[in-house]
Each structure stands twice: as C-alpha cells, then as structure tokens.
C-alpha cells in the first residue's frame, strides 16, 4: 500500500491531469499520509457484510419512452467557443 512516483504518473495518465515535478512530489507525500489514514479500514471485520452503495432502500424508477427534449443546439453551444457547423471540435484524433 505504499505509493510511488510511477503510480502518481500512471494515475495522472488515467485521470488526464498534468502535474509538474514539484506538484508530483508534494502529492506523493500527501498521498502517503492519506493512504496511511485509509489503511485503518483494514482493522474492520467486514466478512459477510454487504457493501452499502445507497442510503435509500429504493429501486430504479423507469421512465416512459417518450421524446421530451428537443433541439436546443444553439442555446447549448453558446457555452463553447469551439464549435463549427454545429459540431464540437477537438484536436485531431488519429484512430
């Protein structure tokens, strides 16, 4: 359960974050202490305990299959400067 610099780099890759050297070192230290704190959970006997994913004892509601949302492209695309012809744009992806 110790975390290394390469772990931080890997996690940055998965979560698309860029940390510079200084931040990486700082995070590494901070993560060490966070993980140490989390480690306490190992003490707890959780055999046969069902994980609690939700505070509510409800089941998923089903929605009628109706079209209730209509074209608001112009309104929504006001939130970006990078749209053209109604498309969103990103740097070219090579598949």
């Amino acid at each position, binding site marked *: 359960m110790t975390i290394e610099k390469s772990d931080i780099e890997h996690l940055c890759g998965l979560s698309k974050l860029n*940390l510079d050297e200084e931040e990486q070192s700082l995070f590494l230290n901070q993560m060490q202490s966070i993980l140490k*704190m989390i480690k306490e*959970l190992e003490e707890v006997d959780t055999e046969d305990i069902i994980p609690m994913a939700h*505070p509510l004892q409800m089941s998923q509601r089903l*929605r009628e299959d109706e079209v209730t949302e209509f074209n608001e492209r112009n*309104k929504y695309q006001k939130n*970006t400067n990078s749209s053209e012809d109604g498309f969103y744009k990103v*740097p*070219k992806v090579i598949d």
Partner: protein
Amino acid sequence: MKRHTVKELQNMIAEQSISSEEIYQLYLNRIKAMNDSINAFISIESDEISPSSEQESSEIKGIPYALKDIFCSEGDKTTCGSKMLANFVSPYDATVVKNLREKGTVILGKTNMDEFAMGSSNETSFYGNVHNPWDKERTPGGSSGGSAAAVAAGMAPIALGTDTGGSIRQPAALTGITGLKPTYGRCSRFGMIAFASSLDQAGILSISAEDAAIFLEHMAGYDQKDSTSSTEEVPKYTDFLNNDLTGKVVGLPMEFFDGSLDSKYQGLVSESIHAYEKMGVQFKDISLPNIKYSVPTYYVVAPAECSSNLARYDGVRFGHRSTENTDLDSFYKQTRKEGFGPEVKRRIITGTYVLSAGYYDAYYLKAQKVRQLINQDFLNAFEEVDVIMGPTTQQSAFKLGDKMDDPVSMYMNDIYTISSNLSGVPAISHPIGFVDNLPFGMQVIAPHFMEHDLLNIVHQYQMATDWHLQTPALCREFD
C-alpha cells in the same frame, strides 16, 4: 443593522410595512457594502421580482436568498468555485432552485465555496478565501463558507448550501448560525453539481431552525429527474416546531465524548445538555462503535465518486478550455491542469487510485462495507433513542492558512459530521455559545426522514436561548 429572519420578513411583508422590492434592495446594498471584506459572494444578481398568480398564495413569496454557486441557475454564471467553470452560464435551473422560484423567492447572488465542494475552510476557491464575519482572519468553514458567512453577516436572511461530509453543518457551527443537512434523497440533486453522488445533499443555512423549516417545505420532494430522490411525502415542517420535548430521548455517543474535545468546548456542550434537560429531554449514553472509521471511509468513497464525476470537465463542450492544441491527450491534460486547483486534483488522484485495478476490493469495496456497518450503528442506536447529539466540530473557527499544508489534518475537521452523510441520516447544527468570542455549535442527528423532529428540537432550544440571535461585531459597522 438587524439580521432579519425569514419569519420576520414574512410578517413584515404580510403587514405591508415593507415591500419585497425594498427587502431585495436592502440586502443587495448590504452585500455591496460588505462583500469586499467578507468575499461571501462570487456573483451578485439583479434578479427580477416577477409576480405571478401561482405565487400569490406562497408563504415565501418575495423572500430573497443566497445560493451556493454549486447550484445551476438558469442564465447565471455557475462556477462551483472553480476556474474550470469560470465562464459557465447554466442553461437550466436546478430543481430545488426551480421549486423556490415557483414559490416567488429571489436569488441575491451565488455564494463562494470550496472548489467543487472539496474543502472545509473555503480556502480552495478560485475566487479567493471567504472571511469569517466573527473574525476576518479566520475561515468560516467549508465548503459552504460563502453561504454561511452571508447569513451570519446579515447579507442574506437565508442561504442554500450542500453537505457531502459536513459542508453545511461545519460552516454553520463556525459562523454561529443554523445549518441543516436533510436526509439523502430528501431534496433533488438535479442541477446540483455533483461531487460525491451517494453523499451530496442540498440543505439550508439560516438564522433559526424555524426558518429552515419554512424553506425546507418548499425545497424538498420527489423529482423524477433524479433517480436517487425519495418519494417519501414532504410534511409541513412548521407544524411540528412547537411540539413538547418532554420524554424525548437523546443519545450521546461515547465516541463523540471521548475526552478529545477541549474542555472549554465541552463546557458549552454540557450547558446545552442542561438546557435541553430543562425542557424535559432525557439523555442516554450510546455507542456508535464504527464511527471512528467514518473519515477513512469517506476519504475512499467521496474521492472515488468525484474522480468519475469530474471527468466530464474536459474543455470540449463547456467550461475552461486550454489553448494547447497539439494532440488530444495534451489538450485534456492541460485543460484540466489549468482548470482545477490542488485539492481537487488530489482527490481525483486519490479516487482514481482506490478504484484502479487491483485496489478496488481493498479500498472501495471495503469502504462500502464499513459504510454499511456505520449505517447499522445508527439504525441500532435509533432503536434506543429518538435523536443523537454531539459537537459539530472539534474547535471553533481556525485561522486562514492554518491547515492548508496538511490535508489529513483538514480532513479531521469533518470527524463528527461525516458519518451522517455515509448513512444518509438528517442532521442539523445550531449555535450553543462562544469560546474566545468565536461561535461553537452542536449537532442533532435523527433517523432517516425525521427532519421534523430535528427542527422541532432545535426550535425549542432556540425559544429558550438566544445564541442563534447573536450578531458579529462587523454588522454594527454597517449601519
């Protein structure tokens, strides 16, 4: 300068001694005068008071409120305290905002908060620190620091906040006001920018429990747009405020009273207990044996959920966008590097770690099992007692900058509040006195959907005491 309660404003409007427009202007003026030194608001509205016949019979028509900038409000900048959303104008209203709008309330402004609700001191906001009205060198707590400071300073009669690990209750305690976190699922989360989906809940920061009761009635309720919202009926909370407390049994968890609380705070708690006893309340020692694991449990579950919830902030469709254009990967990384602050990044990394291959069972799954145990502790306790009480925080407001270097020490601020989020039970913090001129608060926790009990209990306390009516010295400067 007087801090009016919502109840007082209702009376004034009914008596026609002041109009809603005048009330709105009054608060706007206060905000303009005070915000520079408190920094409670990120943006200040000039909302239209638009009368409509639907609102005619509304009890809260014309009541202005402050809205934590985590709630989407249509046509308004909604920043979540982050550079990532600094330019984001929401095209829709959160359901709770829509509910209140339909009842004729008006938004005074969007309040400052810890970035993406991650923090306990309102020091992680892109928009700068919020200052505690009781002592500007101290934090008001967080993440709903702006909302708490606004109400404490009289800039707003009431405010909305969110509570994921204590983010309403802790700032309420540190600013001497009342803060309510309803049961998970009581209020809709639609339009409330997600941090940790299974823990987040919209709530109220107010001067009194009575005010919270008034607003909660209109905010709460089932929302078909939120699959996790409850169909439980919403009672008229104000109907319960004046119930007699005789015979109420209150549990005091030994884990909350293990001697780690400094004696000066313990003294205030003891005095409150006496005040309650005088009202006929009986106290009983109980145990919540797994409660000490709430902080580590929370710091697995919350970061895990947030690491996933924050993946949508990628610069493509809205929000901050880097000018880095070489390739997609760099574009994403640069956008998110520029847009997020260090605490957010830290939690995303932690969350990504605990969910990653090989660690899921040891961390996330384990934490959800411990969560079940914590919930079970509450359910067991509530077989013996009606509600549980304890301190809201371990200390009063700390100085700005004190805890920024040590995240774990910051996380420990939430030690009393986090367990209610894990279990989903409702909880309320109310002021119980001062230590060194700084307010301190106590918490009451009830079983699921028993908000009416909480509000009743605290209202009775607030009828018998006046801690909640104390105003910071700063208010007197603005007359």
